[in-house]
């Protein structure tokens, strides 16, 4: 392989990357690339593409892992949409969670990023400290802490009782339990915060100077300079957090005692999918659920992408 490269004369070092070189060497140079790519290609075919196809097929079957799959056409889907109230409950729970958790999380992330941006000293310390919950929060341990804090008689409950609001524990209240999971997600705002902060630091200072010379106040500057300049980063965070929120599992599992309780109020989509597949052995039904999740995430992402044209501003584009 080396010899091939050595004998290939580089035409006067002219733009080595942009123009594909002569026909003959180009063909031979593909070899190394595919060797580098082989683990990834293997994974993409065996663990992504093929499983996606199989999962689509299984979604039209009745399959329990032991007997061969039995074709049932659209029955899994019709059952899901028309005969399974638990399915719709899990959809509503998940949507409520996404709609509450994502904006709150991004709001906090942006607020704290703005707070830190104005600092000269200690920025590094704060940045890391605010980021810590993002790493720890994904663990079972912290989910268990959350369950205890929001339990009947837990710290949050007692504090609320102290100011006259009696909840009797959020974890056991079907109308509140989903918010415990949401608050745990909001608590992990560190990752989008770090991304926001990096984005804020790339906004050129003279934009603010120009704005203040034009008489723009603080709020005006935020709306007319900060938000547009930050919109690509906001877009990135929004897409990422939305996709992740649809798939929340560990905290839901921990807070609901593994069963989606109380009264199915924390039976998140993924929790119900897990139960259908691995407790009830309805692999076909679970595959159908997985495909609807895939389509839903795809659709939501597409909507965000489409609407982004009207609110995401790329500095190097227009002007």
């Amino acid at each position: 392989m080396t010899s091939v490269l050595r004998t290939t004369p580089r035409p006067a070092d002219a733009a080595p990357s942009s123009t594909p070189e002569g026909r003959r060497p180009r063909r031979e140079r593909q070899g190394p690339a595919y060797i580098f790519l082989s683990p990834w290609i293997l994974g993409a075919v065996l663990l992504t593409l093929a499983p996606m196809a199989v999962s689509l097929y299984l979604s039209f079957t009745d399959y329990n892992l032991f007997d061969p799959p039995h074709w049932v056409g659209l029955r899994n889907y019709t059952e899901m949409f028309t005969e399974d109230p638990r399915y719709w409950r899990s959809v509503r729970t998940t949507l409520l969670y996404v709609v509450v958790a994502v904006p709150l999380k991004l709001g906090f992330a942006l607020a704290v990023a703005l707070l830190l941006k104005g600092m000269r000293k200690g920025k590094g310390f704060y940045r890391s400290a605010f980021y810590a919950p993002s790493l720890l929060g994904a663990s079972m341990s912290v989910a268990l802490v959350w369950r205890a804090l929001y339990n009947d008689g837990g710290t949050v409950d007692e504090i609320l009782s102290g100011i006259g609001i009696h909840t009797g524990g959020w974890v056991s209240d079907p109308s509140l339990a989903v918010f415990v999971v949401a608050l745990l997600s909001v608590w992990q705002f560190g990752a989008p915060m770090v991304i926001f902060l990096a984005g804020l630091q790339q906004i050129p200072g003279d934009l603010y100077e120009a704005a203040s010379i034009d008489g723009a106040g603080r709020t005006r500057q935020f709306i007319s300079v900060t938000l547009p300049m930050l919109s690509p980063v906001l877009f990135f965070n929004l897409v990422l957090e939305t996709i992740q929120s649809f798939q929340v599992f560990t905290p839901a599992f921990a807070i609901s005692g593994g069963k989606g309780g109380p009264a199915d109020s924390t039976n998140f989509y993924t929790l119900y999918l897990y139960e259908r597949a691995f407790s009830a052995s309805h692999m076909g039904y679970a595959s159908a659920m997985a495909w609807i999740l895939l389509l839903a995430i795809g659709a939501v992402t597409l909507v965000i992408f489409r609407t982004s044209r009207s609110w995401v501003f790329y500095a190097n584009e227009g002007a």
Partner: protein
Amino acid sequence: MSALTRTPAPVATTGPTAARTRRARYRRTALHVLALAVLLVLLYPLVWLLATSLKPTDEVLTSLKLLPSHFEWDNYTTALDGVGGVGVGRLLGNSLLISAGAVIGNVVSCSLAAYAFARLRFRLRGVMFAFMVATMMLPQHAVLIPQYIIFNKLGMVDSYWPLILPKFLATEAFFVFLIVQFMRGLPRELEEAARIDGCGPFRIFRSIVLPLTRPALITTAIFTFIWSWNDFFTQLIYLFAPEKFTITLALRNFVDQSSTSAYGPMFAMSVISLLPIVLFFFAFQRYLVQGMATSGLKG
């Protein structure tokens, strides 16, 4: 915001400069006070966890005081016994084995793929790259059941293979993308020079690109370690035998129990399970924060 504090507003600043700098200093102090206050609220659950792990069990639920009446170190000795006859040492060892395997797999396979995407030309490069980026958005549930069937057919269920093997096939596109982003920022001159000196792509990769990519590789390694350590879903699906349990799975036993009799030991075990992440965090937080920041920029 900082631009505001630094540049004096053109109107209404008739006062002497001394007053202005004093006001700026007050502002900065106020910012710090606010940031520390927010931080205090944020870190409270972690402090609570630490304090509760040392409380006698009957105090966990009855007393709202953060500090225990006396330190119950026995919680930790009970926690060390582990769950179901499997000691904490074994549980930690299992978690460590899986995480270490995942780290090696991800670093090797993702850096190989990233180099091809960032520097080599090949047919379908655009299509493959787009596909790779798209898989970052793919919910794992879409491939979960067939993957389970594959590993079941291979007789690998209830072993660590389903948790480690996929990492050697660069299935975590996030890291491929992260390393590609980093490699694209490297100057090409060194590689060009090496090529003229007769180096092939493998030599260039190993001797030039890989060493320069070290920050991205470290970031990949740390994130992979922490995410594997925290992972629950995959472990829940693939591991059954208690002696193969990870520390995360062992904590799961406390989830099902409605009895609160083991509250103290449960939180002691929680603290033990978080220790490696905390240590990693303190050792490498610079890489973690920068890795996260760069993933959202460029593009």
